[in-house]
């Protein structure tokens, strides 16, 4: 399996090459180089997946394979290694990332054609792919943190790709700082965890060896075990990257980046890093801190519901998709949160990973489709679209497939994965299950609202007729639509499960039937409201004005963040500190200087240069001494 190393390394080399020599290359060549390199990586990933899933099973359990080398020493026990850990989830992620990335690379040749900085764009894409691949094959939590940060930076660079646009710059800054804040939690969590367990290695942490955690056994902080705290903090890191409520604020803004970037980073790969992190450490969570898992489930559910509600009223198509992404990641988190570890209990875990896989495909498809639409009408606003079905046939059908998949209609892939998450949730708690089912209904509603408003509804007039995208853009659409169509019946439980043993999927038909029914009702409602131009949506918006405005403004969370950063941190802390530094600390130092100047002025008064004064002093001094000598 040593060749898997090349999968990760190739994009890095491509980044170096395009980054250093990019300017000398023709844009087209840069695009081809990037895409070709990714194609090799993807082919190798498929090879690795095939080889791993066919050969690595020993006694019914997949055995992980790993290799690493020492990168940095900290203490006797703690050291950072860089290496490759190949196990089922890593292999799955390799496949997902290289596939989506390859599609995005290919798509961008058409979409970004003629953009300034085309080579730079491909260099950044390669950097991102490299970091993401490095993240998923990490052998230890610190390697994950390293690539986690690299992923954050490449995301920053790509969101801010149009760097002359102030909104893009602000969005990239926001994305980086919010996730950085979450990473602080991650870092402290890592420090805590590694201090008590004496290791960073995933293999040791997840081996189920309880003696590792003995040292921390008695240590508690505010009523919770210290390992629980560490894991909760690590989850905060994951929540930041995966845009969990309330750290999700950066993701909708991140849509300022080029659309293929949104497809790659903010839909399919980077935002699931948090899910992947929890999945990676799942045995630790389950065995050492089950309370934190419940927390994860609750956070996931809240996020999912919140984002679905907000998505129903947004008018920027990319924002709708962004909130839909947040909502779907919430689903995955819930799946992990309600899961057990062994055998049949591990349904949630398996379902969550399956949903990660299918979601990556159909959400990338949705974003790329949105890109094709934006490419055609040069706008993100629903108001400028409508009636596009005649002009963009390929985009329309692929988009429809994705919408059906995310809405959970069989036999599209989303149905299978989402249904299993719902089943696991109902098994865990019926209340949570009901919330998630409702959210699933909302999902179907807003997705079809989006679909109808783009392709049906009232036709807007265009200066020139919108035209279908070029071949390089439609091929990825068709490919992803194909995957979305056929991925559903994959026996996923054979490959990726919580205990790495085989899990037999059998559909829970009551849950499945109910969720399909809900989805169909929601789609029918959307059809009623949005297929033809109708006044009902506006009337509804006016009658529920408060709720509508609040949801449209995303429940004012961005304003809250702005208040915290601008008013509290900037004006409330930094300015006073800077003032304090200039006036109090520096004032004291200058005060010393002024004081010594005053003193020296006073002393200088004696040295007036007036000889007469000197004589006077001499005289008085002589008299004084004489008196002293004579009378004392």
């Amino acid at each position, binding site marked *: 399996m040593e060749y898997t190393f090349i999968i990760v390394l190739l994009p890095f080399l491509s980044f170096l090459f395009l980054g250093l020599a990019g300017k000398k290359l023709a844009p087209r060549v840069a695009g081809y180089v990037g895409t070709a390199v990714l194609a090799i990586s993807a082919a190798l990933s498929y090879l690795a997946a095939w080889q791993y899933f066919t050969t690595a099973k020993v006694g019914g359990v997949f055995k992980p394979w790993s290799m690493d080398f020492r990168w940095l020493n900290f203490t006797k026990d703690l050291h950072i290694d860089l290496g490759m850990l190949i196990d089922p989830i890593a292999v799955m992620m390799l496949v997902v990332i290289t596939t989506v990335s390859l599609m995005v690379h290919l798509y961008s040749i058409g979409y970004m054609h003629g953009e300034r900085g085309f080579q730079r764009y491909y260099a950044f894409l390669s950097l991102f792919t490299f970091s993401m691949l490095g993240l998923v094959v990490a052998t230890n939590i610190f390697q994950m943190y390293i690539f986690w940060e690299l992923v954050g930076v490449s995301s920053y660079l790509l969101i801010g790709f149009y760097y002359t646009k102030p909104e893009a710059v602000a969005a990239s800054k926001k994305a980086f700082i919010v996730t950085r804040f979450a990473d602080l939690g991650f870092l402290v969590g890592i420090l805590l965890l590694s201090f008590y367990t004496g290791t960073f290695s995933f293999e040791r942490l997840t081996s189920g060896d309880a003696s590792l955690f003995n040292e921390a056994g008695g240590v508690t902080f505010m009523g919770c075990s210290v390992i629980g705290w560490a894991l909760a903090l690590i989850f905060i890191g994951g929540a930041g990257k995966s845009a969990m409520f309330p750290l999700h604020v950066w993701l909708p803004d991140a849509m300022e980046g080029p659309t293929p970037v949104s497809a790659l980073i903010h839909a399919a790969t980077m935002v699931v890093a948090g899910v992947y992190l929890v999945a990676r450490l799942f045995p630790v969570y389950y065995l050492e801190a089950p309370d934190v898992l419940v927390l994860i489930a609750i956070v996931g559910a809240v996020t999912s519901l919140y984002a679905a509600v907000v998505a129903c009223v947004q008018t920027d198509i990319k924002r709708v998709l962004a909130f839909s992404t947040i909502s779907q990641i919430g689903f995955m988190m819930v799946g992990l949160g309600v899961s057990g570890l062994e055998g049949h209990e591990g349904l949630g875990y398996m379902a969550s990973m399956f949903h990660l896989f299918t979601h990556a495909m159909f959400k990338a498809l949705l974003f790329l489709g949105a890109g094709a639409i934006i490419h055609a009408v040069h706008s993100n606003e629903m108001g400028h679209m409508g009636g596009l079905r005649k002009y963009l046939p390929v985009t329309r059908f692929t988009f429809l497939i994705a919408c059906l998949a995310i809405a959970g209609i069989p036999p599209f892939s989303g149905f299978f994965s989402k249904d299993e998450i719902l089943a696991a949730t109902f098994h865990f708690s019926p209340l949570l299950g009901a919330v998630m089912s409702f959210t699933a209904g909302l999902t179907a509603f807003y997705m079809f609202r989006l679909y109808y408003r783009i392709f049906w509804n009232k036709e807007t007039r265009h200066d020139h007729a919108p035209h279908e995208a070029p071949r390089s853009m439609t091929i990825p659409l068709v490919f992803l639509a194909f995957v979305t169509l056929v991925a559903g019946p994959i026996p996923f439980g054979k490959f990726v499960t919580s205990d790495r043993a085989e899990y037999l999927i059998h559909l829970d038909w009551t849950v499945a039937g109910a969720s399909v029914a809900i989805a169909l009702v929601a789609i029918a409602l959307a059809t009623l409201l949005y297929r033809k131009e109708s006044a009902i949506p506006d009337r509804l918006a006016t009658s529920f004005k408060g709720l509508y405005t609040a949801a449209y403004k995303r429940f004012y969370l961005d304003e809250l963040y702005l208040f915290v950063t601008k008013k509290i941190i900037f004006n409330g802390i930094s300015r006073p500190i800077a003032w304090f530094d200039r006036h109090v600390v520096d004032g004291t130092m200058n005060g010393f200087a002024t004081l010594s100047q005053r003193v020296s002025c006073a002393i200088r008064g004696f040295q007036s*240069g*007036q000889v*007469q004064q000197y*004589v*006077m002093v001499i*005289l008085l001094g002589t008299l004084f001494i004489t008196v002293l000598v004579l009378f004392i």
Partner: protein
Amino acid sequence: MEKLHLEYYLVVSIIMFFAGIYGFITRRNLLAILISIELILNSVDINFALFNRFLFPGQLEGFFFTLFAIGVSACETAVAIAIIINIYRNIRNIQVKNLEQLKD
């Protein structure tokens, strides 16, 4: 003629000396200061001559020194007056308090 006591002479020279000192400290006019300095010098000259006369009658060092001092003071006065004249040419004034340009 009865020989006058040393004390009488000394009183004169002390009065001269302190008059000189007083003048030197209080006067603001350069010429007056110069005159005061002469007073001091001369009072000291008197003392030299006196002590030579009264204590070492056979010797002449005191007188010589007095003559020498008178000579030096003449030179000194010449230099001083030259400076004062120059100052006067420059600033039209010979009050000490105005002479602060070399300071700072």
